[in-house]
């Protein structure tokens, strides 16, 4: 398939539209048509609304999926939270007809129906499976030689593994392979598989706890001499980028590791400028990273 319904969610369009821009540009570069999901809402966030009322969470998710079903296009996402919600909702509705009927009875009130006819693919999967890293490699104009990248997977791309089915959750390589395909180095660092701290409503409920995660992750990445970190998730991106400003304010110590979304890194390797992929709209500085991209 070379057309995808782009489910934007909240953080991508409403806080980091640079992620949206870079993703659209990169996919179009490889001949993949990006379709807008008109009238989509919050996914809703799996650990937030899923923690408040699972029934509402599932029903609103089913409505969002039904928009792509009407378009006849599979869904792609740039946020692990959106990925989790859409995939988990599909999983739950597939295994339980009674539940599906109940959800559809509610959807009937707005003239919609969930059928289960489209799939969801994370942007990582589009790059790895549809476009393929080998093809990407052939199109690289500016290999990121000498750049050290700290990879952050985010939790909900990989887990729960019985639904995600991406293999090992302790030692995955799909994002490290991506970084290497672009000519950069993926540095190992302590607690690499640790969460960014934002999920499950913790960022809202207890910012200090959320930033406690972020601080450990960033310090470990800096200790490994990373030039930047990359994420495949808009919410992790938000937590690392905005979180470093919050940490600097709270602790007084300067945190300034550049935060790059995976499609932004790809855009740079394809010859786009940091403005083209809107890295300059980040809150945390990016100069220490961009100055190394000769």
């Amino acid at each position, binding site marked *: 398939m070379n057309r995808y319904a782009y489910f934007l969610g909240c953080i991508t369009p409403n806080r980091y539209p640079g992620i949206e821009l870079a993703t659209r540009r990169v996919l179009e570069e490889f001949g993949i048509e990006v379709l807008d999901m008109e009238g*989509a*809402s919050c996914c809703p966030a799996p650990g937030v609304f899923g923690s408040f009322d699972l029934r509402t969470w599932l029903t609103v998710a089913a409505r969002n999926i039904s928009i792509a079903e009407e378009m006849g296009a599979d869904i792609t996402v740039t946020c692990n939270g959106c990925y989790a919600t859409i995939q988990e909702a599909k999983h739950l509705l597939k295994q339980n007809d009674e539940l599906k009927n109940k959800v559809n009875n509610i959807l009937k009130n707005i003239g919609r129906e969930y059928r289960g006819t489209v799939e969801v693919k994370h942007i990582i999967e589009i790059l790895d499976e549809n476009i393929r890293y080998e093809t990407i490699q052939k199109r690289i104009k500016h290999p990121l030689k000498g750049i050290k990248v700290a990879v952050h997977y985010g*939790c909900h791309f990989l*887990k729960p593994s019985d639904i995600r089915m991406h293999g090992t959750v302790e030692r995955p390589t799909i994002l490290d392979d991506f970084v290497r395909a672009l000519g950069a180095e993926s540095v190992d660092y302590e607690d690499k598989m640790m969460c960014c701290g934002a999920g499950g409503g913790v960022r809202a409920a207890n910012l200090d706890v959320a930033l406690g995660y972020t601080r450990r992750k960033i310090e470990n990445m800096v200790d490994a001499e990373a030039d930047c970190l990359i994420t495949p998730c808009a919410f992790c991106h938000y937590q690392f980028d905005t979180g470093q400003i919050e940490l600097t304010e709270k602790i007084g110590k300067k945190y300034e590791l550049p935060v790059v979304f995976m499609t932004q890194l790809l855009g740079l390797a394809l010859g786009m400028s940091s403005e083209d992929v809107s890295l300059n709209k980040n809150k945390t500085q990016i100069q220490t990273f961009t100055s190394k991209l000769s």
Partner: protein
Amino acid sequence: MASKVIRNVTWDFLNEVIQDGSRVFPKEELERLRFCIQCGTCVGGCPSGRISALRIRKIFRETQLGLKETVLSDDNLWNCTTCYTCQERCPRGVHTTNTVRIIRNLAVKYGYIKNNHRRICEFFLTYGHAVPINDETRQVRKDLGLAEAPPTVHSHPESLAEVLKLAEETGFKKIVERTAK
């Protein structure tokens, strides 16, 4: 101080957790909560446990013992980022993270929702986004050559009405407005 010995163990709360969770999850998955033997693998791998006082196994033990109010009113219940590390590692196959989500559903049902979370719900019930757009991002979108408002509910009032109708049908607004006595 001597610790309290609990003699009147009741399965009522654990049954309620399983019952509530089975609104969306298969009951047989949730039944595994009975299998928890307090091995502590969950706490050992928990990133939040290094920073906060969240102890997943304690929450599960208290649930097995029927200590409903203790579990539902515990602030640490909200320090789980739902990273699934414990669920992946649980040697008894307990769906730990999903169970936390269900227990939180009950906490909200009984009015223990946090004010900051209620605000997120208000955003959702007003804009259809948990994180709605702001003036700063509108400007960034314009600068980038993107539509000032994304093609989501932000550009479609009729779609927002659909989302709000769903939330009304499920009783979401009433659920999150409850306060504990």
